[in-house]
């Protein structure tokens, strides 16, 4: 199959899934519980529709499309970071002490990424916004991949029984890791034809897989009260209460 055709099919499948997921969450009573997911999917949908609109109106090589593309990319990466933060919050729902530490860590990581990306200001004065955004997006994207892996390890550590969250995190992991590997391959092969033709399709495929995994997690996994296997009341307190 022509790689462009595959890419278009995956692109439209992605729009349908995003729209379907947003409608499902809006129509069901799960909006509040899945606000992080709904927020990110809505951002994804709005960003992609804006890009399509700009592409149709101004054309691929126009400055307007370029600015719409990079601005939406910037907002999407920030929404990804917020999504990971909200997943951390959900994981630490019954672990207030841990959440205080995690919150500090997330703020520190966010500031660090802005700081490192800000270094571009020091040695380049042309196309400042574009250079900063490109650098910032790359850094924050890879940071989110690492944070998501840490979140997965945290879920294992606290033996969380929130199966839905586990699957949501795995979906995000696929969405992060696939494109990161593809972009690194593109960079290493110096944008060789085969990598360049397969890259966009694979990135879209990862988005579709993430949306499918999320749809499965939200619709099929029965909602359980989030329990953490650790006892909430320490044994000592129970003994002394008697």
């Amino acid at each position, binding site marked *: 199959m022509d790689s462009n055709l595959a890419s278009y099919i995956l692109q439209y499948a992605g729009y349908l899934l995003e729209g379907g997921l947003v409608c499902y969450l809006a129509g069901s009573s799960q909006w509040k519980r899945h606000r992080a997911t709904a927020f990110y999917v809505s951002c994804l949908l709005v960003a992609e529709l804006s890009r399509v609109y700009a592409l149709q109106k101004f054309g691929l090589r126009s400055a307007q499309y370029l600015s719409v593309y990079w601005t939406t990319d910037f907002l999407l990466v920030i929404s990804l970071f917020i999504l990971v933060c909200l997943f951390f919050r959900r994981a630490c729902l019954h672990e207030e002490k841990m959440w205080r530490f995690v919150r500090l860590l997330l703020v520190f990581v966010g500031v660090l990424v802005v700081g490192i990306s800000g270094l571009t200001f020091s040695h380049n004065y042309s196309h400042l916004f574009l250079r900063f955004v490109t650098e910032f997006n790359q850094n924050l994207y*890879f940071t989110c*991949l690492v944070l998501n*892996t840490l979140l*997965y390890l945290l879920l294992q550590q606290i033996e969380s029984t929130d*199966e839905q969250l*586990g*699957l949501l995190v*795995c*979906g995000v*992991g*696929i969405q*992060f*890791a*696939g494109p*990161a*590997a593809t*972009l*690194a*391959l593109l*960079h*290493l092969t110096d944008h060789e034809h085969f990598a360049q033709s397969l890259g966009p399709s694979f990135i879209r495929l*990862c988005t579709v*897989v993430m949306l*499918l*995994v999320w*749809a*499965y997690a939200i619709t*099929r996994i029965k909602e359980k009260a989030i329990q953490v296997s650790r006892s909430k009341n320490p044994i000592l307190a129970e003994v002394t209460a008697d």
Partner: protein
Amino acid sequence: MIVAALVLILSTALFFFYFQVTCQKILRRQFDREYFQSIAIANRLEFPSLRKSLEEFGTPVDYSRLRMMLKCDFLALTYLLKNAANVNQRYSHEERLLILYFRWQFLSLAVRRLLRAGENKAILKLTSVLQYFANVVGQRVNAVKFGNLTAADYLLNL
């Protein structure tokens, strides 16, 4: 260059890791009862005995026979998934993902065989996918009433 290579290696490893974890999480789904046994008996599937022999004795059977057994069971079950008591006559998304996972594990079995490392682990993963498929088929067949026919009778008449 080195950073890009590191990112590529790390991201690829993480991609396969998340893919595997996602599939295993889907496979952990609890069914209200074990439907797979009746499906295996009705269709003369061999994966339950293969799994049992591996868990009890830890010794796999002849490799070429093992591959054939797994492949035949896989073909039979994917056919049933698509056609037995399935109104849409197509796989669901998670089934497609698990089919992909099965093929990947099948490839990994061949590689493990060559390297002589962790062969039994791959076989157990393959049988767990087959068990899941059999459970799904059993649950679907069980949900549909066919007069006085049992799930096994229905499948024998298919």
